[in-house]
C-alpha cells in the first residue's frame, strides 16, 4: 500500500459558457482507477460522462469550457491545467484515448500506417523505418488482417470496425498505462461490438492496461467492466463493483435504468418501466437531488437538498447519492440498503 492510484480524480467541476448562460456540465466528480482496472462510467446523453474524461485529457475547448475546481492526479502528479507542451507529454504517452466515431478522429489524407508512425516518432523519437515496423506489429496486435497491406491504406478504405481497431492500435503505440474509450462501440454492429470489447478485455488482462470505458449501454458495462460509476446530471449518483451496481442497486436511477431495459434472462416478458420526464436543465441545476423530479420515491428533502454520497463501510467502494440511504429513511422495495456512514457531502 501507500502507492498512488493510477488516476485519482477529486471534486472535478466543469462549466461551459454559452449564449444561454453557464452550463454546469460536471458538478463535483470523484473517482479513481487502479492499474489494470476496467472502470465504466455510464449515463445518458448530457450527463457529463464525456466532458469528465475530456477535461482530464485537457481536450475540452477553453473557452467556452472552464474547469472550475478539483484535481486529477496521474500516478500522483497533477494533470489538470497543464500548459499545452506539458499536456502533450502525457497525452498519448501515458493515457491513450479512442472515440466513438473513428472516421472523424483519424486524418483522412494520411495512410493508417503514417498516422500510427507519427505518434511513435513524436513520443519515442523513432526513425520512420522503426516506426513503421512497430506500426505493423500494432495492427497485428489489434487483429487487423493483412497488416502490411493495411498500413498503406487510407481511412476510407477501412470498415467501421477495422477503423476502431486502427484507432486502438494508434492509442497503444506508446504503451499507455491507461486507455480512455469514449463510446468505442456505439457506432458498430453487435457482432463487431463483441469483437472490439473482447479486444479491450484482452489488452487489460494480458498487458495490464487500465481502461476507462464511457458508455450509455448497461449491457456493454456488464460485459466489460469491473467497477462502475453511474452519472446523472453532472454527478456520480452511484458507484461500486459491477455486481453491486447490477445486483444491489442503491440509487433509484440505477434501478430505473435496469427496469427500462428488456431482459432476456428469462423467457418471460416483463413490461418495460420507462423513467418519466427528462434530465434537468444544467443551466440552473436544481438545488436538491438532480433526479428528484423523475424519481418515484422522492421525498420532501430530495427537492430541497442535494444528498451526500452515502457509502457502506462493509463494501467501501459501494456508494449512492440518495436520501433514501440516510439513517431513518423509509425502506424502498427493490432498492439495496447500504449500511451507512456518510462520506464527504456537498
Amino acid at each position: 500500500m501507500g502507492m498512488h492510484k493510477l488516476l485519482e480524480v477529486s471534486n472535478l467541476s466543469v462549466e461551459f459558457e454559452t449564449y444561454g448562460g453557464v452550463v454546469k456540465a460536471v458538478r463535483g466528480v470523484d473517482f479513481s482507477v487502479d492499474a489494470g482496472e476496467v472502470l465504466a462510467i455510464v449515463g445518458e446523453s448530457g450527463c457529463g460522462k464525456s466532458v469528465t474524461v475530456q477535461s482530464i485529457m485537457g481536450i475540452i475547448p477553453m473557452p467556452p469550457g472552464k474547469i472550475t475546481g478539483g484535481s486529477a492526479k496521474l500516478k500522483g502528479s497533477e494533470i489538470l491545467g497543464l500548459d499545452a507542451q506539458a499536456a502533450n507529454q502525457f497525452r498519448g504517452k501515458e493515457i491513450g484515448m479512442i472515440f466513438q466515431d473513428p472516421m472523424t478522429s483519424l486524418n483522412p489524407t494520411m495512410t493508417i500506417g503514417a498516422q500510427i508512425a507519427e505518434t511513435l516518432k513524436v513520443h519515442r523519437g523513432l526513425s520512420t523505418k522503426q516506426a513503421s515496423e512497430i506500426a505493423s506489429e500494432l495492427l497485428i496486435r489489434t487483429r487487423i488482417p493483412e497488416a502490411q497491406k493495411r498500413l498503406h491504406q487510407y481511412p476510407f478504405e477501412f470498415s467501421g470496425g477495422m477503423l476502431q481497431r486502427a484507432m486502438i492500435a494508434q492509442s497503444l503505440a506508446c504503451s499507455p498505462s491507461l486507455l480512455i474509450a469514449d463510446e468505442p462501440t456505439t457506432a458498430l454492429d453487435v457482432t463487431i461490438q463483441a469483437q472490439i470489447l473482447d479486444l479491450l478485455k484482452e489488452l487489460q488482462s494480458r498487458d495490464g492496461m487500465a481502461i476507462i470505458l464511457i458508455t450509455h449501454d448497461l449491457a456493454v458495462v456488464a460485459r466489460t467492466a469491473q467497477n462502475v460509476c453511474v452519472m446523472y446530471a453532472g454527478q456520480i449518483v452511484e458507484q461500486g463493483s459491477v455486481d453491486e451496481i447490477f445486483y444491489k442497486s442503491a440509487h433509484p436511477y440505477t434501478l430505473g435504468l435496469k427496469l427500462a431495459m428488456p431482459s432476456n434472462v428469462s423467457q418471460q416478458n416483463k413490461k418495460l418501466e420507462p423513467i418519466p420526464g427528462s434530465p434537468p436543465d444544467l443551466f440552473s441545476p436544481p438545488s436538491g437531488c438532480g433526479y428528484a423530479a423523475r424519481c418515484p420515491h422522492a421525498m420532501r428533502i430530495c427537492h430541497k437538498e442535494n444528498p451526500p454520497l452515502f457509502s457502506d463501510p462493509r463494501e467501501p467502494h459501494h456508494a449512492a447519492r440518495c436520501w433514501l440511504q440516510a439513517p431513518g429513511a423509509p425502506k424502498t422495495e427493490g432498492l439495496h440498503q447500504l449500511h451507512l456512514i456518510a462520506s464527504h457531502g456537498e
Partner: protein
Amino acid sequence: MIETINLKKHFQVGRNQTLHAVDGISLSIAENEILGLVGESGSGKSTFGKTLIGLHERTAGDAFFDGLPLPQKFTAKDHLRYSADIQMIFQDPYASLNPRMTVLDIIGEGLALKGIPRADIQEEVGFWLRRVGLHPDHMSRFPHEFSGGQRQRIGIARAMIIKPKFVVCDEPISALDVSVQAQVVNLLEDLKDSLGLTLLFIAHDLSMVRYISDRMAVMYLGTLVESGPSDAVFFEPKHPYTRLLIQSNPEADPILERSRPSAELTGEITSPINVGPGCRFADRCPEVMPQCKAVTPQPRLIVSDHQVACHLYDQT
C-alpha cells in the same frame, strides 16, 4: 395484411456493378402483428421497408397489401392513395421533421391534404399530442424546442393521426436514451393494441426487437436467413448467423456475461455488389460445407412457422 414474394431491390452503382441490397425476400405480416426485422448495417433491412411501401421502386418480385398488389413504382397519386393506410416512422427525429413547420402543421399535414378544415385539424392534433404524452399547447412550437424523445413522439403522432393500418418503424428508438426508449416502445405497443395496427419494426437492438415483436425475421446481405415467433428465433436460433448474432448480443447481467465465451464471429459483413451464387454467409460461417458456396439455400419450414434458409437443414 402484408405479403412480399421474392422482393428485390438492386441499385446500379457505376458501370456493370449491381448492389443487391434486397435480394429475394418473401415474408408476410399478419393483421395486428408486430414483425421485428433485424440485421447488421448493410443487411438491407431499411431498404426492404422502404421498397415495400413504395419509397423505392421494386426491381422484381411482388408486394401485397390487404390482398391487393402494390404497384411496382408508386406514382404521386399512388403515394397519396396509400398514405391513408400506410405510414412510416423514421430513425432520426432531428432530420425527419421540417424545422420551419410548427408541430401543428407537421402533425396535421396528412389531414390538411385530405381537405379537412383547420379547426378540426387543431382539435385532432391536440388529441394526438395528449395521446403521445405531450401537451396540446405544444402545437404552436417548432421541432427544435423538443428533446429527441419528444420529437420521436411528434413523428409517431404525425403517422398515427391518419389512422393507418400498417406502419413501418425504421429504427425508431436507436437515437434515444434508454429511459426514453422504453417510453416510445410502450407507446407503440399501446397504439398497436388500441388501434389494431400492424407494424414492421426495423431495428438492430435484438433485445428490444424480441421484447416488442410477435415474430422476428433476420436479414443478412439482402437475404432472409431465418424467421419465426420471436422467442423461438431468440431462444432456439437455427441459422448459424442468428446464433452468432444472439451470442454477440450483450445482456445487462454481469454473471451471465462472465460465463459467456468470447466472440466467435470473426470477419465482417461483405459487399453486396455483384454477388455470386451460394449462401451469403458462407465465408463467415463456422459450419460451412462445400455446397454452401455453390448453391443458394432456400427457406424451409423447420417447425411450425419457423423457417430457415441454410443447407444444414437440407433433407431430413
